[in-house]
């Protein structure tokens, strides 16, 4: 049981590290900044470049389904499907990670899209 728990935590850490890496790369490119303020309730720390803030005002980006007018990046397929104003989403479907970006919304917020992420645009 102890070993299963260790493996599970290990997988979770690995997964979350991959996510964090993706967020770090994506958000810094989108905002063209080395440091992006993120307003989220899901994470307490992401990376040195992604600073967690506790108010919508200070935020550049909202991560997750929170009430805030700033660009929203969602972490659930169904939320993403429902919220048409979200700039994109990252979620898991059948054990497979999925990244989606909405071109129109990104443009609306004047966010930059690099070639690396063009394939994920809708």
């Amino acid at each position: 049981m102890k070993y299963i728990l260790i493996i599970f935590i290990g997988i979770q850490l690995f997964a979350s590290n991959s996510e964090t890496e993706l967020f770090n790369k994506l958000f810094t490119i989108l905002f063209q900044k080395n440091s992006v303020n993120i307003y989220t309730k899901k994470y307490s720390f992401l990376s040195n470049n992604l600073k967690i803030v506790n108010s919508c005002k200070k935020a550049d980006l909202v991560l997750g389904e929170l009430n805030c007018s700033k660009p929203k990046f969602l972490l659930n397929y169904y939320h993403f499907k429902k919220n048409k104003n979200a700039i994109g989403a990252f979620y898991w479907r059948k054990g497979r990670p999925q990244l989606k970006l909405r071109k129109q919304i990104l443009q609306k917020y004047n966010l930059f899209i690099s070639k690396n992420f063009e394939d994920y645009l809708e």
Partner: protein
Amino acid sequence: MKKIYYLFLILMLLLVSLSFIEIKSFNKTKQNIKKDILNELLLNVNSISKNISNYINKTYSLYDLKSNINTKNKVDSYLNSFLGHNYKNLFIVYPKKNSKFFTVLADGSNKDKFDFKETFEPLQKDKWQKLLTQKHQIYFKQNIKNIWMTYLYPVVANKKILYIIVIDFSTKPVTLVNNNLNIFKKNVIFFGGLIFIAIIVLMIFFIYDYKRQKKMSYLIEELKQLNDTLEEKIQEEVEKNRQKDKQLILQSRLALMGELLSMIAHQWRQPLNTIGSVVSNLKLDIMFGELDEKKIQDSITKIENLILHLSHTIDDFSNFYREDTTNDFKDVSIEKILNDTIDIILPSIHNNNVQLIKNIRYNKSIYIMPNRLKQVLLNLLKNSLDAIKEQKIKNPFIQIDIYKNQNIFIEVRDNAGGIPDEILDKIFDPYFSTKDAKNGTGIGLYMSKMIIEKLNGTLYVKNTKEGALFTIELREQNGN
């Protein structure tokens, strides 16, 4: 010994080589089993995929499938019927043009179900790309440690992929067999190790035993040699003893000779004195002119008789001293033997005023070597006489009893006080004497005992109230 070590080394090398071969063979078999099971699973998945494609192709048009959500729902239900614990996800996609995404057409899943036409980005895109290029079914592991595999089955028409059936299937049977084989391998290695250790222990024991046996055979050989030498040594010792006995006998005879000479001297003194006296009388008669023919004749007769007596004495001693041989066994009266012995020692007995008592209750002839018995009797009488003289006994006596009670008994007893108890069991030992060196050699009684035993008898001693009692017990023998 070197051979054993080489054998041991070869056996070890053989065992190690065999172990390596066995491990290699086991691993190969394990891989084959895993491969076979996986092939079986793939066959099943392939068969399911074929059935699904056949059903869809026969039932629905591609257009319907791509555009009609009702068709999608029906296909979803159909796909759902295949799901079980071995099939986690079963969905149908088709590739989007110029995109890494695929569009989902149907999904049989119960949970986390794809929406109609939901775009989907697969993992391991290179595999999917390969599928698009080769248009041939493909399978791959979702990640290295995962039990789930993805099977992609492209449905092709006119060299064009119409859609792809995606099945996430479990490889748990392979994992289970692999785990069990690993347990089996561990057990085999454990028992193999035990056998290996047992063989090493056995070999060590064998070498130890071999060494021990070699040492033992060496010791046995040494013992054999010792035994061989021992026989020689025993013979040497026996020869030494024989020589010692000879020496003893010689000493004994010399001592006896001394005794006899002393006795002869004693016996001759009286006749010689008488002869001297006759000769002196003759001289006086010549001086006084009284010598006549009768006196001369009487003197000559007297001297002749005395010379004859002296001659007899010599003969007696000579006969006594002569050693018997085994041919000298003869029937002789015990009384005669006793009297012959007493004749020799009698002057000494009389000179010491010792009373000699004879109780002869058995006077038949016995078959014996008489001179040997005489020697023993003389020795016993002489010992009694010496003891009497030494103890200065008043009214001394020596008593001789001869009687028969099954065996013939000759007892010689005296009243000289006896032998001290502490030396009673030693008096028959050689060189043991209570007399001083001049008077005793310590071999008289030892020789007497030997002689009596040679005559098939027993000589023993005990103390009476008055003195010592020596008993000669003779078993009667037939003399033909």
